[in-house]
């Protein structure tokens, strides 16, 4: 019995390590190629760099306009994510607990909206917010945040929906008897119980918004409001990309999310632990 257990555990580790190698190698490539010249990258992308020279990073920081674009990306991502998570949690809760005919229709529309090809909305967005309302250049960042809430809430509501269903109604009823309003019940009772999925949804939204190129490239027309992915186009060429700068730039863009992700995962586990102590 014990022997079998050890065998399975070795087997699990072997699989885990093989998967690890498969999944991490692009990240490894990203790191080693951050220290190479264009020529080296093209000729031998898999070999270690001849020297660990950090000078390219200084160049990247300057060309990326890093201080400005990082601030913009950070602001847009955090504000959008916070608002998406709160608004969608509230909406999903309402849709689960008040399954009226209208609410069902609303939910269906939300789900359907996620399969609208984005390309078919580009020109309408430009016409409405550019040509007609002329707000694109007046409030580019708030407009972009509003767009993110609009595009992001459907998926977040959809994900909350299933998880809220599995929360026992009795707990809420108890709170209700204690005199909590609906809003209080939601924030005090329901939301804490949703911690793992809330953090997950937040992570997925951060991931999407942080790396998104298409939407900000439509809305942001001025270098002062560019996000990092939009600014990164300075490293693209018509026929060939400037890899020696693009690769370190990508590395610098994704490290913050990796850190955020690791903190997030810890939160998920912590949330569950607290729940089980209760």
């Amino acid at each position, binding site marked *: 019995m014990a022997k079998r257990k050890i065998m399975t555990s070795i087997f699990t580790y072997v699989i885990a390590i093989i998967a690890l190698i498969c999944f991490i190698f692009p990240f490894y490539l990203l790191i080693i190629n951050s220290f190479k010249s264009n020529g080296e990258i093209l000729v031998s992308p898999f070999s270690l760099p001849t020297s660990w020279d950090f000078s390219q990073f200084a160049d990247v920081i300057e060309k990326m306009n890093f201080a400005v674009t990082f601030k913009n990306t950070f602001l847009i991502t955090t504000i959008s994510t916070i608002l998406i998570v709160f608004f969608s949690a509230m909406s999903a809760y309402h849709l689960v607990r008040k399954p009226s005919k209208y609410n069902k229709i609303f939910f269906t529309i939300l789900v359907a909206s996620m399969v*609208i090809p984005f390309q078919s909305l580009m020109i309408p967005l430009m016409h409405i917010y550019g040509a007609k309302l002329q707000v694109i250049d007046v409030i580019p960042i708030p407009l972009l945040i509003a767009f993110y809430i609009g595009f992001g809430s459907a998926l977040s509501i959809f994900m909350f929906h299933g998880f809220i269903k599995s929360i026992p109604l009795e707990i809420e009823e108890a709170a209700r008897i204690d005199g909590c309003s609906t809003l209080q019940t939601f924030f005090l009772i329901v939301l804490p119980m949703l911690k793992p999925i809330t953090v997950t949804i937040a992570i997925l939204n951060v991931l999407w918004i942080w790396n998104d190129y298409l939407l900000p490239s439509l809305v942001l027309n001025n270098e002062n409001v560019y996000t990092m992915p939009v600014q990164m186009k300075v490293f693209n060429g018509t026929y060939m990309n400037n890899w020696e700068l693009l690769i370190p730039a*990508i590395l610098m863009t994704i490290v913050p999310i990796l850190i955020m992700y690791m903190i997030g995962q810890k939160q998920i586990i912590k949330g569950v632990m607290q729940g089980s102590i209760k």
Partner: protein
Amino acid sequence: MKRGSKLADWGNSLLFLGPTTLFFAMTVIIPFLYGIYLTLFKMDNPTDPMVFSGIYNYLNAMDDKDFWESLWLTLKFVFATVFFVNMVGFGLAYLVTSGMKIQNSLRTAYFTPNLIGGLLLGYIWQFIFVQSLPAIGGKMGIRWLELGWLGDPDMAFWALVIVTIWQTSGYMMIIFIAGLISIPKDLIEASTIDGAGPLRRLFNVTLPLMVPSFVVTVFLSLKNAFMVYDLNFALTKGGPFDSTKMVSMHVVNKAFVESNYGTGQAEAIILFVIVAVVTGFQVYSSKKMEVEA
């Protein structure tokens, strides 16, 4: 009294749904309806003056043989990816919640492919399919590996499938982790005491409780597969000779490259309807399986 409670109901609805509805309407609903309105006009380019043309664009789309071919190809792609993405994603999640010592590092590692956008990904994998695998094939004498993958229609298609699985299963893993972790420990313990083996526990206890996660991941993988564009563009550009041109790429080319904006927009709407029906069916039927507490 009754009236008052009705008013309160309205107030609650407004409070809970209002903000979402507002932003959703302004970014998705209104532009989408406007987008449908645009399909009723003949426009070669998005900057052209609008000339009313009725259903001309839709007739054009119906006649566009390439559109339907690319849709058929996309359907094959959907079949090839949805199953594997979910299986691998769930497998990874199961692995990293099974209590291994290094599971936190593994979670981070499996997640990294998501962080790297299409452009660089396309380059890395191009190098693997065009140079590395043929080099390995040459050294080991494996005939079919010796030539670049992206020059053969079938191999290029499978190259897209492989990269998709590799790139998105980490994303699905995160959603599965949230689901697995939310399963009450006592349920698992109870079944262990009942003498259920690991496999039976998986099928009888864990999987049924994972339905909410599967509803989301199956939907997402369906949607991603139908809408695939970035990877298609970065890895194969639709080649060799249009054999891997998925429907989104066809629509984008039609509307913005080949100066048929109206027709391209109409094709996008048709695509929406088809995908909405497929995913709608999936969500409707699987939502019924969700366990309500």
